[in-house]
């Protein structure tokens, strides 16, 4: 399968250090992010001629595609094609060298990671990155906290808002653990969870931030066929709750079975886009996957 590689970005600390005003207010824990002017009704996310270079490496080369609300969208390509980099650009981990990324009609380039998250994009990581010493429940609650407004002062003096949000956050987190099927592990420290459970926990944690768009980076990596089947069900279930899903996946069968549309990347370039059937028959996709032996997934 895919080789592990570094996902940690160069220091983006200058960005971190600058204080930021609160992002656009969001309704409450359960509310949809505030609607903003959307140019095309159906479009949720627009990647617009994005180029991203690391020194000499061109990880993304003039990539454009857009996601529609409510679909399951596949992002595929051989190792090193730039899929994870694309996620990182969308979630504020990297800043595109050129081009624009618009979410609900609004540019997210230059926004901070936590702002983007609260704006409605959540993600998981290719190499699971949970908070290992926290319990499963606490992990999810960190996600749920994204929309909480309890201040340090109200936490210190346990003001009513603290109790209210703690209670609702906890209930919602438990519900999400149940949703992904690991409620029985709620009280266990997440490092003790099995690999499959950890992957599910990451999904629950991302869902807790109340995303409009959920990005999953190879959620089925290392799964056996039965586990993959379960995951497919879960992804469909997530979509049915109204969340748009962007899925990176190596397993062609899995991608073909669940996605509505697919974009194929190779060496940072988009080489194909379309429905699973269209993409499957596209000669350059076949070449990318079969023609270059070292890249075969």
């Amino acid at each position, binding site marked *: 399968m895919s080789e592990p590689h570094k996902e940690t970005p160069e220091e983006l600390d200058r960005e971190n250090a600058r204080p930021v005003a609160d992002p656009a207010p969001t309704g409450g824990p359960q509310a949809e992010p505030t609607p903003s002017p959307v140019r095309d009704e159906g479009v949720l996310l627009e990647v617009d001629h994005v180029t991203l270079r690391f020194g000499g490496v061109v990880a993304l080369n003039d990539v454009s595609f857009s996601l529609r609300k409510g679909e399951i969208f596949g992002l595929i390509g051989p190792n090193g094609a730039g899929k994870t980099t694309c996620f990182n650009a969308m979630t504020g981990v990297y800043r595109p060298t050129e081009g624009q990324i618009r979410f609900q009609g609004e540019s997210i380039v230059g926004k901070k990671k936590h702002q983007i998250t609260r704006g409605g994009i959540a993600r998981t990581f290719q190499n699971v990155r949970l908070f290992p010493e926290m319990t499963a429940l606490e992990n999810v609650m960190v996600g749920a906290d994204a929309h909480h407004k309890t201040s340090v002062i109200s936490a210190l003096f346990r003001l009513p808002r603290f109790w209210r949000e703690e209670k609702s956050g906890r209930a919602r987190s438990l519900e999400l653990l149940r949703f992904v099927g690991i409620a029985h592990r709620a*009280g266990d420290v997440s490092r003790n969870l099995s690999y499959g459970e950890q992957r599910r926990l990451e999904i629950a944690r991302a869902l807790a931030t109340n995303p409009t768009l959920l990005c999953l980076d190879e959620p089925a990596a290392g799964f056996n066929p039965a586990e993959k089947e379960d995951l497919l069900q879960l992804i469909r279930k997530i979509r049915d709750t109204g969340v748009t899903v962007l899925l990176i996946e190596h397993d062609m069968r899995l991608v073909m079975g669940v996605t509505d549309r697919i974009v194929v990347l190779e060496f940072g370039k988009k080489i194909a886009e379309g429905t699973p059937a269209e993409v499957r028959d596209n000669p350059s996709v076949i070449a990318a996957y079969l023609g270059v032996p070292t890249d075969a997934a």
Partner: protein
Amino acid sequence: MSEKASFRSNGGVRGWLGRQPVWVRWLVILVAAVAAYMLPYIGDVPVIGPQIVTEGIDWPSALFNMSYYVLLALGLNVVVGYAGLLDLGYVGFFAVGAYGTALLTSPDSILYEDTGWKWLMAVPAALILTMIAGVILGWPTLRLRGDYLAIVTLGFAEIIRIVATSTDVLRGDRGFASIPHPPGSWGGEPIFGVTDAIPYFWLGLTVIILVILGVRNLDRSRVGRSWLAIREDEEAAEVMGVRTFKYKLWAFAIGAFIGGLGGVLFAGEQSFINSQTFVLQFSILVLAGVVMGGSGNMAGAILGGVLISYIPDRLRGLSVGDTDLYEYRFALFGAVIIIIMVLRPQGLIPSRRRAMELKDREKEVAPQ
């Protein structure tokens, strides 16, 4: 078993306590608090009492020393233990709290004509000053990671010390005298006098209890979760919506506030401070205490604070043959730290989480 119970259950005293009904827990805590207030009289307990009390320094004074060391350890534990930020210059905040008090209250201060405040009036101002110092230090430096932060904080404490040594306003060696004591009188006599340190210890203990309650509330809220998330994976935390900079800055400000509390109490008891009081060793000692006791865990930090203050004080006035043990306090102290760290690398009272982290690492090093 309910989810809550399974979340807390664990072996040892804490595990046992966690399984008791709420009223039992509070009763145990109440008894412990009362026992702490009775500590000045422990010398009257037959057999063990006389072994515990210090000989070279009167026992209540030793207890008061412990109280401000414990405060410092609790404050540093928020910064180092909870938020995972290595602060080597923590004594700087203690100094700011003490100097703030001195400047506002001592007749030696250039501000005396204008202020000449009582101790209690100076407390809020001095504490706000320390929090501001924490934010000023944190604002530019919290973007740095690990080692760099440690070096900058080290520099901060040295700057404070050197400014105190060499500026006229802060009076260097000559220091500030006649800093007023805390207010209050009992039957015509002031409660906080010069001879009896017991009231100071009680005051310190009360402050400690309030700090413990406050920090506990923060720890068991989104604030504590955010700190822990930052400690474990800062980037993942931010991607999950945690405003990492904000919470790191809060950890710094809260740590500074608690350190400032220590300084304010210290100034009120000693009534005199000068630039010799705030040497760098002090910061290192407190950090050693936190790590030794078990960082990331308040019980551990408290124990660490007690030990770093108690061990040297206990050695005072003891001698083996002709050698005065107090002279060797740092050597003995170093030996004790080494022994503890070899036998219990996660600290005397490890944080549950830290203990697990280390156990796993042991397994990685020595697979069966």
